[in-house]
């Protein structure tokens, strides 16, 4: 058992991070927020060219031929960067919907709760979106429609969403620690106060526990591992964003500071693949099943 990232996996993660820092850094994030509802098609194609959508498509079908663990690492980076767009839907459509694999097409899915992200910008919508009505989305970077009925949920969608949550959780923990090291009050960095230290420590503990769960689910693809990953990653991301906001004080409550974008995106992702209680119920039922 060597449950650590391989050299190749580290390189892949670095590569995605580098691309996203270059193409979707803090400045681009700002611009995107000022132009809500518009997807950067050039970036979408660049992601396609880099293999983001075709990552798991076999090489003989024009894909990169990698597996779920690699996809999870890429989506973690996307979550960390707050990259907008129906990333999971388009990734899952690669190989099935023409143009999805290379980022020529934007694909939206009717999610488990009947929510459709990026419906108006989508070239292709999978699932029954007739009669969908627009919502005033809480997340400025995710336009939402509500369809009359939800669709079935692909476990890969659950896991990749959990990976994005993990990325968010990691990022907000870093932001909080960074701020706690530098912001001074009462003549010392606020990170010297235990109340702040302990908030940050719990963020890290939730994040690292979620990381182990998400990576393990990527390796096993076991349904119970996937539900575990989802529950832990949702918790790490949503609570982490709140704690990060708290650590930033008044600054945390401003539109300028990115934490609210993480929190809001986290909420959207929490509902993307059906309700968390479904996952809890499945995990409960699993306890009554014969152990493997």
């Amino acid at each position, binding site marked *: 058992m060597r449950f650590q990232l391989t050299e190749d*996996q580290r390189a892949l993660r670095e590569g995605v991070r580098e691309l996203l820092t270059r193409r979707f850094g803090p400045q681009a994030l700002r611009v995107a927020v000022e132009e809500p509802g518009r997807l950067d098609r050039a970036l979408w194609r660049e992601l396609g060219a880099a293999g983001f959508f075709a990552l798991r498509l076999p090489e003989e079908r024009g894909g990169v031929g990698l597996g779920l663990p690699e996809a999870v690492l890429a989506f973690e980076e996307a979550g960390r960067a707050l990259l907008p767009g129906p990333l999971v839907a388009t990734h899952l459509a690669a190989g099935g919907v023409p143009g999805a694999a290379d980022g020529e097409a934007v694909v939206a899915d009717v999610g488990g709760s009947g929510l459709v992200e990026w419906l108006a910008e989508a070239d292709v919508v999978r699932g029954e979106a007739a009669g969908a009505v627009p919502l005033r989305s809480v997340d400025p970077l995710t336009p939402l429609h509500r369809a009359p009925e939800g669709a079935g949920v692909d476990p890969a969608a659950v896991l990749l969403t959990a990976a994005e949550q993990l990325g968010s959780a990691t990022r907000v923990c870093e932001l909080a620690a960074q701020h706690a090291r530098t912001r001074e009050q009462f003549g010392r960095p606020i990170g010297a*106060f*235990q109340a702040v230290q302990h908030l940050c420590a719990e963020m890290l503990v939730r994040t690292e526990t979620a990381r*182990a769960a998400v990576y393990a689910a990527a390796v096993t693809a076991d349904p*119970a591992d996937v539900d575990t990953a989802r529950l832990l990653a949702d918790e790490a991301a949503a609570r982490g964003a709140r704690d990060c906001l708290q650590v930033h004080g008044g600054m945390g409550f401003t539109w300028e500071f990115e934490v609210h974008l993480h929190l809001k995106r986290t909420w959207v992702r929490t509902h993307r693949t059906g309700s968390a209680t479904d996952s809890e119920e499945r995990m409960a039922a699993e306890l009554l099943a014969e*152990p493997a």
Partner: protein
Amino acid sequence: MDLTYTPEEEEFRARLREWLAKVLPTLPPKPSPDDWPARRAYDLGWQRMLHDAGYGDVHWGASPTVRLIFLEETEKAGAPYVGAGFVGLLHAGPTIAAEGTAGQRERWLPPILRGEEVWCQGFSEPDAGSDLAALRTRARRDGDDYVVSGSKIWTSHAEVADWCELLVRTDPDAPKHRGITWLAMPMDAPGITVRPLKTLAGSAEFAEVFLDEVRVPVANRVGEENDGWRVTMVTLSFERGTAFVGEVVACRRVLRELAAEARGNGRWDDPVLRRRLGRLNAEFRALWRLTQWNVSEAEAVGGVPGVGGSVFKLRYSHARQELYDTAADVLGPASLDLDRPWMLDRLSSLSYTIAAGTSQIQRNIVAERILGLPKGR
């Protein structure tokens, strides 16, 4: 990332499983939790069987992965826990193996492995718990001996121990983390008084130890004089890093039992309780994955567990308390009956956020050593 085991590891697992299936039915019944001499004999007997079968040194002689497999399989099979062997096998032993001289290893390790000697841990003092470096128990040099006076507290298994890993202050004028020395003290030396303390669970798990001019040979010093703090950090990294690993498997079994109990008594129909059980299932599954992650990491960096152990300990100790609180909710009013399963465990689990470093201290460690926050106040 890989969660499959190598053929050698799988072979180890298969061999161990087969052996456990053969020997476990031959074990005598477990002694009463209050009868410490009987518990000592039982725990040592088990260690002796492990040793004779070639598994005696698995806690520190084997790779972290092999050790993980050992803990997983023994727990799954319902084998005895290390019990009274805890300190010897899980921290004094590894510390002596890492820091002791050849002679010290020769003298102390084989009896631990053969299940002949029990160790206890004399670190905490009445005024030095979380602030361990504030310890005051004095040792002054007299010829070939240290003469030790002071007192220790919360010393688990002291009543039945042969040896104590003892922290003493050898230089009272040095800054507090310096001037500490790590000694192996024979528990039958004159001047030692052990007074058992009753825990909130009603048993005598730990004790006060009074030391009045106790002579400990200088040859029993592990590491240099006044270098005991560094040696202690080695000990504690073992304690926090891997000592709780096997229990995660036990918690996952308890969860299954709880689900079955809830199904039987109708509580399963309560969706709130059911989902809480579901969430705990996810929690312990994740903790098991975190264990595998930490073990793999330890293996990658050469065996000594890192601060990741604090992350695990923090999350696990709270999850374990939540588990037994949920057990109480499954049982309802029957949870007030200490003869019901899990209810004594519920009481003992209260110590998990205190022993081996409180949750507050673990959070300080995570904040300062992992997140790089300034030293706290």
